[in-house]
Every structure is written in structure tokens, then in C-alpha cells.
């Protein structure tokens, strides 16, 4: 399967994407606040490339992935898929978009219907999108299982007969069924045993090379993200604070939060020089983000005007950083 040609536009381009959740209390549903889960996020994923998205709880990366998967609709902003605006979709066009964007989630035990055989699980996207007849589907399923390194007879078995790593392979096979252009990988290996993770990561890299598919790679294992991604975006409280080439961001982070994050990542190389940056305090609630730069209460390099002026994402030696230091 040779990688399909792209039309030059990035596979996915997100501009000023925003998602606000209204918090309601009480039986009649009075609104008591707004959670700005995603607040003006922009990035692009070229064809055949991987964007790594990192950040801690409350940063908005999960909501971002849901927006991209059309499981949520954006409050404002646009999502362009291969040049076409998909933010406000009707059913027919959303179907088309769905075929092109798929996902693999973290928990291999919850992402497969325990009542269905693996063959049916992998074939489901094909069934729903009425692509092929039964024989054609069987062939495609065999092809997909082979692609992910599972034997053909796996199609007749149930999920509980497989190990965690094998289940993730099934999930990957299912995600590839409709030949998507983008696959959202949300912590694809964190629930797996350490000795299995490398297998799955290698598989994902292989598939990217063979099929030309792009990835949005979300994980808290920063070394894995740096390994898999060409570009890394760091999110904090709904905003991107740094965006740039993966190696550059990982080895020479610029934004104070990125520095703290990667300092906490504890590389196993004992002699690796690290800037020790430990943050104080907790991640603030997304209901009431701090004014000015959202990170300023915890920032070890905080300056007076950080509390009043929100820094814009500016270009700084080849990458984007949102910080008054630059």
C-alpha cells in the first residue's frame, strides 16, 4: 500500500480552536461558570508526520483530541482537514471526515467490545461505512491483522484471549481499517508492560512509513513523545505555551513550564545535564485560570507584568513560545 499523495495542504490544521464548557449546578441548570478547556489553540500536522501533544491534567489535550475526532464541537475556531473546513459539519460530511480520522486509546481492556470477536471488531468501521461486501471485508481484515503483526486466526478469537499489547494491535488494526490520514494516539502504550511498549511504538513508526499516515501523539511519557514526534506542542490550562521541533523542545526547552516538565521527566541517562526546575503549588482549576500569563503563579522566573499581560505565542529561534522572557 503506497502512501497516497497529498494535495500539499497539511493533513490537519487547527486555528484558534476554543472549547468552553458551561458548568451548571442545581436541578434547573443555572450556569455557575465556564471551563475554558481549550482556549485558542493553533497547530498544523503535515502529511506523514507526528505532532506530540504534552501537558498535565487540566491542560486541555484530551478535549483537543475529542474536538479533532469530532466527538465534541468547537465553541469557536476552525479545524481544516486537507484544506477543507470541517468544524461545522453535517452528518454526511462528518461521515467522510470520520473515515479519515481515527483513534487508538489508552486502555486496551476498555477499547474492544468484549462481546465481539476480533474480526468483527476490526471490520466494524467497514460495516458502518458500507464499503465492501462480506468477502471483501474478510480480506481487508486479514490484511489489517497482518499489517499489525497478528496471525490471521486472531479474527476468530475474543479480546479476553489476548494480552494487553496484542489488544492494542487489534485497536490499531481497527483504526487503520478505513485508511485514515490521521490517527489520534492517546496514551497508546502507557497501560502496557514496559517490555512491550517498544514493540508497539516500533509498529506505529513502521505503519507511518508504509502508509504515510499522520499521528497526533498524546502521552505523558515525554521521552516516548520526543522519540515519536517531529514537532511537540506543550499545553497548559487550555493554551499552547511552546511549539517547535521535537528534539529542540525536549533538549533545550524555552518556556519555564516546558523546562519544569522536561526536568521532571527524569531521563535514565544519569549524566545527562539537566536544568533542575521544580514547580511549587498545584495546577490551578480551569474554572478560574490566573490572569495574565496563566502560568505566572508557579513560574520561577516570574516578572511583574506577567500577572497582567498575557503573552502571545511568538516566534523565537525556530519555534513558538508564549512567554515574556522572550
Amino acid at each position, binding site marked *: 500500500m503506497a502512501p497516497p499523495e497529498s494535495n500539499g495542504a497539511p493533513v490537519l490544521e487547527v486555528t484558534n480552536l476554543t472549547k468552553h464548557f458551561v458548568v451548571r449546578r442545581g436541578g434547573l441548570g443555572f450556569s455557575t461558570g465556564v471551563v475554558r478547556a481549550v482556549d485558542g489553540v493553533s497547530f498544523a500536522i503535515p502529511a506523514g508526520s507526528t505532532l506530540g501533544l504534552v501537558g498535565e491534567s487540566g491542560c486541555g489535550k484530551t478535549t483537543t483530541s475529542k474536538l479533532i475526532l469530532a466527538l465534541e464541537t468547537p465553541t469557536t475556531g476552525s479545524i481544516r482537514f486537507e484544506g477543507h473546513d470541517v468544524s461545522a459539519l453535517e452528518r454526511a460530511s462528518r461521515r467522510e471526515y470520520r473515515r479519515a480520522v481515527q483513534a487508538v486509546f489508552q486502555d486496551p481492556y476498555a477499547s474492544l467490545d468484549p462481546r465481539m470477536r476480533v474480526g468483527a471488531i476490526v471490520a466494524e468501521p467497514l460495516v458502518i461505512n458500507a464499503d465492501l461486501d462480506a468477502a471483501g471485508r474478510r480480506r481487508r481484515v486479514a490484511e489489517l491483522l497482518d499489517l499489525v503483526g497478528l496471525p490471521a486466526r486472531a479474527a476468530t478469537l475474543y479480546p479476553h484471549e489476548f*494480552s494487553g499489547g496484542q489488544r492494542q494491535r487489534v485497536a490499531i488494526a481497527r483504526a487503520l481499517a478505513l485508511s485514515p490520514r490521521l490517527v489520534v494516539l492517546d496514551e497508546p502504550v502507557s497501560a502496557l508492560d514496559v517490555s512491550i511498549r517498544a514493540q508497539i511504538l516500533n509498529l506505529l513508526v513502521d505503519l507511518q512509513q508504509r502508509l504515510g499516515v499522520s499521528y497526533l501523539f498524546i502521552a505523558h511519557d515525554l521521552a516516548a513523545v520526543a522519540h515519536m514526534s517531529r514537532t511537540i506542542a506543550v499545553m497548559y490550562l487550555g493554551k499552547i505555551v511552546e511549539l517547535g521541533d521535537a528534539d529542540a523542545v525536549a533538549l533545550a526547552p524555552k518556556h519555564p513550564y516546558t523546562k519544569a516538565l522536561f526536568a521532571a521527566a527524569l531521563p535514565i541517562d544519569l549524566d545527562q545535564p539537566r536544568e533542575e526546575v521544580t514547580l511549587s503549588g498545584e495546577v490551578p482549576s480551569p474554572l478560574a485560570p490566573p490572569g495574565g500569563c496563566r502560568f505566572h503563579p508557579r513560574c520561577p522566573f516570574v516578572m511583574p507584568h506577567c500577572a497582567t499581560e498575557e503573552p502571545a505565542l511568538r516566534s523565537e529561534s525556530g519555534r513558538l513560545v508564549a512567554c515574556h522572557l522572550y
Partner: protein
Amino acid sequence: MSVVAIPETQAAPAPASRRQRLPLVSLSIVAAFVLVALLAPLLAPSDPYDQSLRLRFRPPVWEERGSWSYPLGTDRLGRDLLSRIIYGARVSLAAGVVTVLISSAFGAAVGLVAGYYGGRTDAALMRATDATLSFPVILLALILAVTVGPSFTNVVIAIAVILWARYARVIRGQVLTLMTLDFIAQARIAGAGAWRIITRHLLPNTLNTLVVLITLQVGYVIIVEASLSFLGAGIPPPTPAWGSMIAEGRDFVTSAWWVSFFPGLAILLVVLAFNLLGDWLRDTLDPRLRQL
């Protein structure tokens, strides 16, 4: 923290000792009950409607004046008790099965829809369910009996109209748990609509719970039907029904004790068997439910 984490092997067959011992006693009682009800005409020694004033209040065979032509004795109209009990099984089984099927189908549907859609749909459906759950079955049946007249249909309606709410509650709870699992989101990402998700993904994963609930409810329905018949609001005479048979013998408990005793014993055994069977089903099916 995993205390015992056994890595799974590929397609390891479960050893034969894995399945728990079948509950032979309850299973055979339930099977016997069903068979007796189905084959009543072949098994009953006499016609249950056959009256004989000469043979009134004959005792069971092991007492003086008893005889093998009426092994469990006769009632106040001289009808053979054993035959009436055998035919009464039909009524109980029919009432149990029909009522439970109707109420479980409707209740499960409500639970599935409420759990899937959530929000206002869920709130509205659950309010209706709560209201239904608080209404007493017996009262409703009595009202029907007084206004429309007692009949088999009325019994089924009275019970089913209230029983569905129990299924709705339980199934909705399970659906809420299932909805948090990723494979539902995956189905949506693949393009599945509500119908497909509900029928293809949610329903099969609630079947275990449904089966257990149905089994346990059959016993309950039998008791309610018997209570209604006892009160005169259920199956009208002369159709043999265990509840009305107990009622008929009420005034003669000291003299002709067998008229009330044996139908009561039948109810006890059958309901107990269904309850035990339901318990066993829940215990066997539960661990696999946990595998989610």
C-alpha cells in the same frame, strides 16, 4: 497496585474446573416445573374441573380414607388436588413468562435509551421510572379487578405495567458504566449511530444482567400472581391457580389442611428454585462481567 497479575497467554483454554458446579436441585425443580406446565394434560391423573360432591375433602393417599385416584386429596368440590396443582403450574408459568418478557423488553429499552442519551432524556425517563416504582402492584391489580373484572390479562398488565421500572433502573446503571468505556467512543469514531451502538454494543453487554434479573423476577411474579388470585383479584375460578386454591382452603386449614398446604408448597418450591437459580447465574456470570 496489582496483587495477582497473571499475564494472559494466547487462547489459553479455561480448565474444566473453572465452571462452578451446576445448581442441580434448583435447575431440576425449574425444569420439572416447566415440563409439568407444558405436559399438564398428559400428567394430570384427572380432569381438574371434574367435581364430585361425593369425594369432597378426601385426604391425601397416606391417610385413612385416602386413595391413589386422588394422591394429594380433594378440595371442597371434590376436585383432585394433584391435577389442579399440575394445571395450576400452567397459569403460574404463563403469568411468569409473559409478564417478565413484556416488562423486561420494555424496561431494558427504557434503560438503554436513558443511559445512552443522558441529559434531559435520561432525567425524564428516570422520573417516570421512579414514579412507577413507587406504585404498589397489588393495589393496581385490585383496581383493575374491581373496574374491569379479574382475568389473566389483567394480572399480566397490572404486574408488567409496574415491573418494567425495575429493569429500566438496573439496565440504565449498567449502561452508564459501559458508556465510559472506550469501545463506545470507538464505535462513534467509526461512524456508528445511536441505533447501532445501542443494539450492537450496549445491549449484548447487558444481557448477563438481564438474564439474572429475569430469572429472579419470575419467582416474584409468581408470588404476586398467587397473591392476587388469593385476594380474588387474579385468575378467576374455576381455572386452577395456586393462589386461589390457597384461598379456597383458607377456612378449612385445621380440618382439611391439604387443600391450602400443597398449593402453598408448590409456590414455595418453585419460587425458591428460581431464586437460587438466579443467584447462581449472577455468581457465574458476574466475574466475566468484571472482565470489562
